[in-house]
């Protein structure tokens, strides 16, 4: 254990905002789903009543917005690096997706060298950015406007469904999938092993060490 070389992945500010976002997102998804379907109706007593759940929904919404604004103010460079990577979908990312089904069912397979984020992480990021922005905007309309444009109702529901479906995959890969769940260390302690970095983020590994060699 101790012999393992660790690499810094995420700064504390980014990790805090990630977990604040995650906690608010799950709270919002559960309380919002009570209006969407009936599968979670047994959870209503947890919030006192459905009215209570709607109050919790709004409080959690404030925390989710804070989780978005916080890193933008505190770590704008890290956020912009993430955004520029995510919106730059390369050949290697497409190749990653071809090898993804094996990874998804827990089979270790050689993957084409990936940057700081792999193709799958980029897609999840894209989905969460688009859904998150859309949910915040439509949600604010529904909350604050006396007569919101009626398109906001189906839009809010649609983005919720897409965001939740993608988050379920994200949570599975980070927590339960034996091939990829080492990555969660990057979001908890902020570090991952160099071995994992080399195997899963080959291009990031190369870039990091080339830079070091270049500047002695």
């Amino acid at each position: 254990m101790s012999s393992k070389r660790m690499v810094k992945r995420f700064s504390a500010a980014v990790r805090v905002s990630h977990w604040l976002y995650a906690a608010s997102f799950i709270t919002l998804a559960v309380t919002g789903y009570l209006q969407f379907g009936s599968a979670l109706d047994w959870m209503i007593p947890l919030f006192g009543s459905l009215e209570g759940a709607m109050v919790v929904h709004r409080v959690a919404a404030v925390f989710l917005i804070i989780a978005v604004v916080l890193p933008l103010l505190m770590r704008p460079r890290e956020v912009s690096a993430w955004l520029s990577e995510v919106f730059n979908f390369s050949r290697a990312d497409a190749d990653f997706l071809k090898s993804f089904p094996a990874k998804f069912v827990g089979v270790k397979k050689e993957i084409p060298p990936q940057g700081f984020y792999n193709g799958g992480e980029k897609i999840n990021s894209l989905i969460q950015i688009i859904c998150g922005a859309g949910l915040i905007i439509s949600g604010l309309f529904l909350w604050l406007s006396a007569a919101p444009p009626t398109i906001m109702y189906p839009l809010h529901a649609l983005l919720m469904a897409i965001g939740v479906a993608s988050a379920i995959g994200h949570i599975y890969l980070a927590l339960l999938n034996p091939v990829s769940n080492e990555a969660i260390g990057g979001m908890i302690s902020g570090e991952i092993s160099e071995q994992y970095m080399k195997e899963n983020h080959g291009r990031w590994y190369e870039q990091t060490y080339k830079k070091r060699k270049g500047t002695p």
Partner: protein
Amino acid sequence: MSRMARLIDITRCTACRGCQVSCKRWNQLAGEIGAFTGSYQSHDDLSPGRWTMIKFYEEKKPGGEMAWHFRKATCMHCADAGCLKACPNEALVREENGTIRRIEENCIGCGHCVQFCPFDIPKVDEVAQKMKKCTFCYDRISNDREPACAKTCVPRAIVYGTWDEMAALADERLAQAKKLYPDSRIYGKDELGGLGVIYILPDSPAKYGLPEDPSLPFTLGLWKDVVHPFGKGLIGASLAATGLAFIISRRNAMKLKESAKLEEGGYDDEQQKNG
């Protein structure tokens, strides 16, 4: 029980507001004193404690002559009810007699019904967090009594009966009304699958604050008929796929463990090396 309806004959209505009072009395709604509205109208709109009222509309004709229109505003108990479809918690139900009835304990006052009512009828009591609207005197009509407003109406402008009877009576009344008001027409027979209120209007609906051709916004159908089933399917598929992948991944890991217990370069060995 067959569908019941009210015929509201505006050509006979005298705007006495007796219906407004008897509605308050039967439903035990407290009186509310509103600000002067600038016209003969008592209050500016319906409210959680005012389920029906006479609305007044003034029109300046091209010749400079003033025309005065009024109409009893109330929930129409539509066949194709937007409020019912928009409600997220089954707080609105359609009864056999056509009443769109609200279930007090299910209503959370979210106000979705307000946004999708073409007639702007439901009002939310923000303190009690409940929507309130005309009940069609459900308690009275399910005991074979006519609604309070119909019972009190002196000129018989509000008539209560089965929908078919009222539709037939509307045709009769229209023929009479045409003599006095050549532009009169029936409103509510075809609108939104047939309304639970059939009006005889002396003039075009727009003059009475009614939409010419009421319809539900397409966003309501998009929301409830497209997005909801799609979203439920998507979340279900995501859960099923990850669940299945989880089981397969565990089985793969177990197989590897079994087949290469202490073999060098095997699963356990690799795990130990990696830490």
